[in-house]
Structure formats: structure tokens, C-alpha cells
């Protein structure tokens, strides 16, 4: 088993680098793939928000959301990861995260639970994953049932301006 904690993204940056340290992950699905993001990087989860699209915006930008008087840019995570667009009928769930002082909403298919996982259990992203996935993933957890890909929110939000 590989153990390369340096590659783990820590949403808060406050935890000491201790291999036995546990970190909370919000698990979610994107086109049936189980993914996780550090819970501390997520400010809140919003559902069924009205998304107003922005003309001329890059395709990764789904539009704007009014989050209690703040304008939040919605990022189409599926598009960012090179996945098929979500079916129109799907409920849109979004994780709100902050990047460089601005709020973003990462659209996902479903949010599941919060898991506390030992950081030394993370494994390197398999090299045969597509370059897009490798770019946005910081590692993989082998959960009893299935694999969970850890996504790097900062990288997902580092959109070309």
C-alpha cells in the first residue's frame, strides 16, 4: 500500500501532518462514480437552486445562483471532469466552496454522507485514469464496498479566467 500523505489536499490546512490523522470527507456521486471532497472545504450543500446561465460564459460555468443575497458562480463539475452532461431531469445538488475570496457552487449528482477516513489509507491516483481525472484527483480510498476518488476543490475551481 502506498502512503503518500504529501499529496493529500487539506481543505483547512490546519491539521498537523500525522499519518494517523483522520479527516472528514463528504462523499458524492458524479455519473455513478463515488467521489469525496474534504469536509472542511465545503461551506454548505444547497439543493434545487435556480441557476441562471450566463451568456458567452465558458462551458464549465453553469451559471449564477442567488445564495441568500450573494451571487455564487455555479461550476458544472461533470463538464470539468469531462463527463457527459447530467440529464435535465436530475436534481441538482451543489457544494458551496470558497476560492480566492469568491464563492462557487460545484454541481454534483448526489451528496451521500460524511466519512472520517485515516489519511494513511489513501492511495495514489491510478496512472491509467484519464489525464482530466488525474489532474483533479489527489488520491483514491478503498472503501469496503467501492472506490472513492478524492477531488481537489481548489483545482476544480482554478478555472482559466
Amino acid at each position, binding site marked *: 500500500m502506498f502512503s503518500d500523505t504529501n499529496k493529500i489536499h487539506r481543505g483547512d490546512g490546519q491539521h498537523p501532518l500525522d499519518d494517523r490523522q483522520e479527516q472528514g470527507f463528504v462523499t458524492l456521486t458524479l455519473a455513478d462514480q463515488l467521489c469525496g471532497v474534504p469536509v472542511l472545504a465545503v461551506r454548505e450543500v444547497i439543493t434545487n437552486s435556480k441557476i*441562471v*446561465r450566463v*451568456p*458567452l460564459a465558458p462551458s464549465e460555468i453553469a451559471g*449564477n445562483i*442567488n445564495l*441568500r443575497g450573494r*451571487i455564487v458562480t455555479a461550476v458544472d463539475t461533470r463538464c470539468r471532469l469531462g463527463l457527459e452532461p447530467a440529464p435535465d431531469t436530475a436534481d441538482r445538488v451543489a457544494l458551496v466552496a470558497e476560492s480566492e475570496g469568491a464563492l462557487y457552487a460545484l454541481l454534483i449528482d448526489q451528496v451521500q454522507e460524511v466519512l472520517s477516513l485515516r489519511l494513511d489509507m489513501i492511495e495514489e491516483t491510478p496512472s491509467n485514469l484519464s489525464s482530466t481525472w488525474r489532474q483533479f484527483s489527489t488520491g483514491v480510498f478503498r472503501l469496503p464496498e467501492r472506490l472513492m476518488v478524492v477531488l481537489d476543490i481548489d483545482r476544480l475551481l482554478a478555472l482559466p*479566467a
Partner: protein
Amino acid sequence: MDDLLAEFLTETSESLSELDLAVVRLERAPDDQPTLSLIFRLVHTIKGTCGFLGLPRLERVAHASETVLDRLRNGSLSVSGEGIGLILSAIDRIRLIVDTISRTGAEPDGNDGELIAELIALAEGRMPVPATPAPAPASIPLPTPTLALDPVPPSTGAAAPPPASAPAANDHGADPAASRGQTIRVSVDVLETLMTLVSELVLTRNQFLQQLRASGNAELTGPVQRLSHLTTELQEGVMKTRMQPIGNVWNMLPRQVRDLAHDLGKRVDLVMHGAETELDRQVLELIKDPLTHMIRNSADHGLEGPEERQRAGKPPVGTITLSARHEGGHVVIEIEDDGRGIDVRRIADKAIAQGLSTRAQIDSMSDDEIRRFIFQPGFSTAAAVTSVSGRGVGMDVVKTNIEQIGGLIELHSVFGKGSRFLIKIPLTLAIVSALIVGVAGERFAIPQASVIEVVLPGTQSDTRMETIDGAAVLRLRDRLLPLIRLSTLLQLPDPPDGGATGKRTDMVAVIGIGSVRLGLIVDGVFDTEEIVVKPVANVLRHIPLFGGNTILEDGAVIMILDPTGIARHAGLDAARKDTARAVAEEDGDTDQRLDMLLVRAGIGAPKALPLSLISRLETFAADRLEVSGGRVVVQYRDDLMPIISLDETVDMPHLALHGDRKAVHPVLVFDNGGKPVGLMVEEILDVVNTALHVEFGTDRQGVLGAAVIAGRATDIIDAAFWLTRAAGNWFRATAAAATAKPRLLVIDDSSFFRQLVAPSLSAAGYDVTVADSAEKALAMREAGRSFDAIVSDIEMPGLGGLGFARKVREGGSWVDMPLLALTGSDTVQEARSAGFTDTIRKFERDTLLSSLKQCLSQPIAA
């Protein structure tokens, strides 16, 4: 520090600012009894209070000053320049002592003996005072009693900064609050946060109200109404914290005008009305510099010297009137002088001399339009550059600054009588009034300040939408208004026509950006709403059409359109003068003036091509035309020149053999790699120097596109097409024989110029590659492409020509390559220092060719 002292210090600080203004006023109007009384009263109060508080040093200075002022007031002493200077230094001394008290709680040590002696001497009429300025006591260096002395150093910087006592001391010290009494300093950030929170509160309230109305819960109505009122009041209150009287900016002006008038040998009276008018501090900050500049301008250019004024039958003292007032959601500021006014003829001459306009254009302009030239960049009518103004930067910057905050500036002037500038600016930048329009099922906001009117195009001829060569225009009160369909601009799908709602009706929002007018076609207009402008997210900031976004009362997030961005995107910049004839061009800015040759050939629109492409204009009598190998040729300069007709319906061999022998045919002669080629036309119409906006996208062979020249739709000829056709097989042999043509890279963001330059260079025997940006060119370098020389435009978006040259010269495989700059303006020096080998004006074909030859120092394959 006890409360009494703290209150005294606050009050005295205020009095001192008032004193500065009053003394300057006094100098201008020595007999102004109210001003004298005011000054006396202020100094008297200071004196009285400090006696009471036990501040002996301050009391002595104030007392001596009061004595002088008392004499002035009762008329036993008259005001003189030296006297004013002395009073100002006494005020400065008082300020210094007060500042020290506010920091340390006690009077500073020091001796004011000399100043007091001078004041007493003045009071007793024993002026002038000793020529040498009073030496400052060692403990506290004192300001010298000169007229140039400046009690507010940060605002003018005219005099050497006074010593440690500087008023800036107000900003620090042990107990800064003490000198402020009822006011406290709050960080702007705190206010901004409050502002944001209140805006959100207002929006939440609106949503709440809406839901309440829907549910019809009567019990809640009372409390909710109260909540609603409180929210509104809170909003107003928070807005008010950001407001400041405009007088805060004006305060420094009297002193500046006084010093300026002194330097210029003029007498100037600055009258101010409405100093208490309040506006947002952000706006205030932004208009400070423009305002100062304009006042200085008025004093320098506007007002005449005393002699000239007297000759014109005016009082020797010139008056500048500055006023401010609220008008709706705006503040109107007027700057008026009774000087010489603006000489329209001089402006016109200057505009022509600077190439901003032509005599013919001037003749068709109104005086107001001509006067507006002073807002053009680089325009200055001052015959000589003075230290004050006339440096050629000025009114254009003022105008830009004011327009940036959504304001507008107007100029009225009567020659010989004076000028009046009217500035209208919004009260605040945080909240703007906007027109909400609908397009393709979505809503957008247009800042109301740019919206002139909304027109419902009808079927009558005066408001009908028409198209000229595919470009939509609206005839609106005898002017042609270029139209842009918003859905096309935003790349939104057009909703299907017809359907349940019947035929879609277009509405036109007429927007004005500076002098440019354009119409935006929208599906509907909803309402005007006060909106809170929020900046767009970083990832969307590159879209030039949006100025921000906002949340409407119903909670929807919508984008705010930026009229300037739209005009620029549509190629209708403010730089364009002839807006009515505008033809939108999507491919960057081709706002270059070119000499275009207008010709007639066949039916349809006149045809035009750049004069610079043509080497000669000739006429040939029909009997000189010969037929050789099925082609028509003439003997021309010891050569056989093939001739074809620009009118494809003309059968050339038939014309040569059977046509009217006496006819004379005009022929445009091109140089095709050293071989002449002729293009026959019916008639040469004119040569017009024009800014060209070409609408591309025609599929007619031999035509690049269309443009409006001299008021008529004109086909722009693709010279390269005709050249190849004329030369055809004729030169194929030579072309094939030509070994290794020099490889050229042509970089230009305008496809029009690429299409012009590239063919003529190919015709001259080069192997031409084109790139539409410096970045793309650099990518070619990275890809290992190699050329013999590069021809680049200077003005391009992104890296630009200069940046490109620097990159090339920094290193890499192109480091030694000859680089030629094509430029529309005179930037030779800059271009050279960036690394260009040579600079050629756009579009001087011959110079370009000879320069290329030199650079490549090898014969061009012909």
C-alpha cells in the same frame, strides 16, 4: 484629557479650516465686512476659551491676532498682502499649538515673541515688517510668514511642508478621538461590509414580502410592515454614512486658485455655491482630480488677464463660479467662468491641423459639436504650454474619468462671454438605476444612465427597421441608428417565431456612449429598477459585455450589460465619428484611415480598393489594345501588360477587336512581382480618405466585403483575386522558376489588413504566412516554424506588436530575424526600442517592399 479641553480642540480644528477659507476670501474682498467679522469672531472665540482653559501661549498669539483683526474690522487698518500673510502665519501657529495639545495634552514649549511683535507692529500701522522672515525658535521650527505658505500641505504641496506640526498630526497621536468630539473614525471596510449586509437585508425583505403576499397571512402584516420600514430606514442610514459634503473637496480650491492667480498675474474670484451637497465618498474621491483640473483650466485658459478684461469692458477681476446641487438621483456640478469663452474657429483650425477632422466635416458641424473637440485626446488650444495647463492631457482625461462613474459632461460657451461646464454624476456608485430588458427568455439590466429612449419600431417610414447589406438600421428622426440584436450579440438562441404568443415584437433600446448612439434590439422591456451592482466573478471577467451582475427584487440573478463594452464589441467605439453610417465589423478594430480609390465597373455598387495597392492610373485608347493568345494586352513600358476588366460582363477580346476605336479606357496598373498587370474599369470616381469598417462575408468572387464610403455602400475589391486572374498562366512559368521565395510572417489582428497585405506581398514574390495575434505567432516559433522576416502590426489586443518584438528579441530561434512594424501612428521610437528593425506606416506598400528588400539583402524573386 478632560472633556472640556477635548471639546475645545474639536471646535478649534473646525474654526481653523474655516479661518483659512475666510482669510483667502478677505484678501480678495478687503472690504467684506461679514468676512472680517467672521474671522474676528473665530479668533476671538479661540482666545476667550483658551484663557478659560489656562493655555497662555495660545492665548497670547490669539490675542495679538485679534488686535490686528479688530483694527481691520473697524477700518483703522487696511488689508495688505503682507498683512494677510502675517495673519495666515498666525493661524498656522495656532494650529501648531492646538495640534500639540491634542497629542500631548499640553502646550508645547516655545516663544512666539517675534510673531507677536510683528502682529503688534502691524496693528499699530508700522508695516512693512522686517524683510527677513522671523527666525523660528529652536524648539519648534515655525512656518515663515510668506504668502505662499500653505497650511494644508497635502492638498497643494505648493510650499515646503511645515514642520512636525503638520495637520497630518490629526491622524495620529495619543488620543485622536479627543480632537473630534462628536465624530469617530470608522474604517471604510466596515462601512462597505455594512452596506453589503444592508443590501442583502433589503433583498431578503423583498422576498419575504412577496411570499407573505402569496400566503395572505394577515397576522404577520403589521410586524412585517414595521420590519419593512425599519429596513428602508436602515438602508438610508447606512447610505448616509458613505456620504460626504462636496465642500470637503472644494476646501482646497480657494487656496489653489489664489496661488495660481498670483502666478499668472490674474485676478480671480472663486465663488462657491452648494458646498453642503452630499455625495458618496467613492464618487467624491473620483471627481476630485477632474474638478481641480477644470478649475485650473478655467483660471488659466478661460479667464483673461486684467488688461485684456478691461479692453473687453469687463471688470478686472475674473469670476469662476462653482456650484453643486441635487437633481433626482444625480449631483449636478457647474463650473462657470466669465472669461473669453471658446473660439470655435480656433478649435476648428486646430482640429483640422491635428487631423481630427476635415474642413468639409467641420463645415457640416454645429458649434456645439466643434467645441466638443476639446474633449478629444491630445487636443489643447493653449498656444504655449504653461506650467498650469496646456500639456495636451486634460479635458479628455476629465471626460473619461467622469464617464467612468456613469456621469456626463457638457460644455456651453459664448465666445467673449465665458464658458460653462456642466457635470452630472450619480450620487452613488453602489446603487444604479437600470432598465431591465428581456431577450430569449432571459433578463438583462442596462444602466439607465446610458439609455436614451426605447423605441417600438413600426411600419411607418420614420420608425421602420431596415437593412443595408445585412446590417440592421433604424431611421430615427432623420438619423440612421445602427442596430444590434442583443440575442445575436450574446449568442442566445432566438425564441421560435410565432407560436402561441403570435409574432414576436422587437423593441429597440437606444443607448448612448459618449457621442455614439446605437440601438439594441430586445424582445421586451420590463421596468426600471434600482439595482445593487456586484462585480462579476473572476472567471467571467473576460467577457467584455458585462459590467457586473445583480440580484433583482424577485431574487433572480441577472447580468448588467456594459454599454461601452457593447459598443466596442460592435466596432462602434467612441472614436468613430460617423455613427449613423456604421457598419458593424466583428473582427477587431480596423479604425484606420486609408486612401481608397473609388471606381465604377459594371452595374451595382461602386467599387473601392486601397490606392496604395495600385502603382499607376493609366488610360489607354481602345486602338492600343491587342489580342494575344485569347488575352488582351497593351504594350506598356517595353513590356506586354495583360489587361482584364473588373466588370466580368465585358468581353475583352471582343472589345479590343470590335469596340469603339476612339474610346478611352481607364486602367489601374498593378505591379505583380515586377510585371505590370492592368485592371480596366469604366470610370475612376474619386479618391477618398476614410476610416474603413468592412463587413466581410460575401461569397462573390473578387470582393472582400462591403463598406460605406462617402455615404454609399461600396464593394471592397479583393485585389489579389484579380491580380492572379490577370496574371494567370502568363506568369506561371516565372513563378515556378522562382527558387526558394523568402518566407514572411505577417501578423495583424485585423482580417482586412491581413487580406490586403498578404496578397500584395505574395504578388511581390514572397511566401506569406499570416497570424492574427502575437500569441499565435509566438506559438509558431515554439512549433519550430522558421521565416526570413516578420511584418507585424503594432496595435493588437493581448501582447501587441511591441510586446511581441520584445519576446522575439529576448531569445529563441527568431532572435535575429528582421522585424518590420506596421503602424497607424507615429510610434517609431517605441517600436525601435522594442526591437523592430524598421517601422512602416500602414499601408505604404512600396516602402514596405523596399524595406523588406533591404532587410533580406537578397534579390526578390520576380
